[in-house]
């Protein structure tokens, strides 16, 4: 029998993998992809509780999360492209233009 706890554990592990990706990798595109993994973990939580409580509100909020993820990807990748055009790098250690 699969309980909501199973889904919570899956979501937590996926979230942790995303956090590890954000912390460890230095390629900013991989970091953005890890953020997508984190948002997916949140969505799994929302949909699991929606199924458990027999209430579609969780799915509505999962759609909002997907919408925010799309906006984040578009703007983030635009920033990466603009940065790459100026500095020829996507290494996050070299992204210190705004440091004073």
């Amino acid at each position: 029998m699969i309980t909501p706890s199973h889904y919570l554990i899956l979501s937590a592990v996926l979230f942790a993998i995303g956090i590890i990706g954000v912390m460890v990798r230095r390629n900013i595109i991989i970091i953005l992809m890890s953020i997508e993994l984190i948002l997916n973990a949140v969505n799994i939580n929302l949909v699991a509780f929606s199924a458990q409580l027999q209430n579609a509100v969780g799915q509505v909020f999962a759609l909002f999360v997907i919408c925010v993820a799309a906006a984040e990807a578009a703007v983030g990748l635009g920033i990466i492209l603009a940065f790459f055009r100026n500095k020829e790098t996507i290494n996050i250690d070299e992204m210190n233009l705004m440091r004073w």
Partner: protein
Amino acid sequence: MAQAIAFYTLSALILGFAVLVITARSSVHSVLFLVVDFLFVAALYVLLGAQFVAIIQVIVYAGGIVVLYLFVVMLVNLKRPPEAHRDKRRLARLGAALAVVVLVEIVAIAFYGYVGPSPVEAAPGALATGNVEQVGMMLYTDYLVPFEVASMLLLVAMVGAIVLTRRNL
């Protein structure tokens, strides 16, 4: 029991591909693993009875966002030219194998659809949640204002992305 098997299989695949996403050496491989990961998450949504979110996951994530990532990876990652690979015919063989697999699958589906039993009609009210009608009704009545705010967010993000990628920034 079948649900448990499906859940554990999907969980193992989701977590395995997530690990591959963050450990892959090449960014292109990472993006492709991300597509597979999103597809398995969509399958998990179907298992949970959230068909609409699953479809949106496939269309928006696996279809839209990941293609965006792939474009950016191709634009910024030009260290190794594509013709540097040793075996030039490897892709041709892989493509042929994939084409054969798809052909077998289509034939199998056609055969099954022809001689197999007609699909069983789902009992009304079997799924109390997850149907498109319920989510859509909620989205356009109780959550109309957040819905409009989300559309404005997408508009702003679109304008922002266009402004950011202009030549003379």
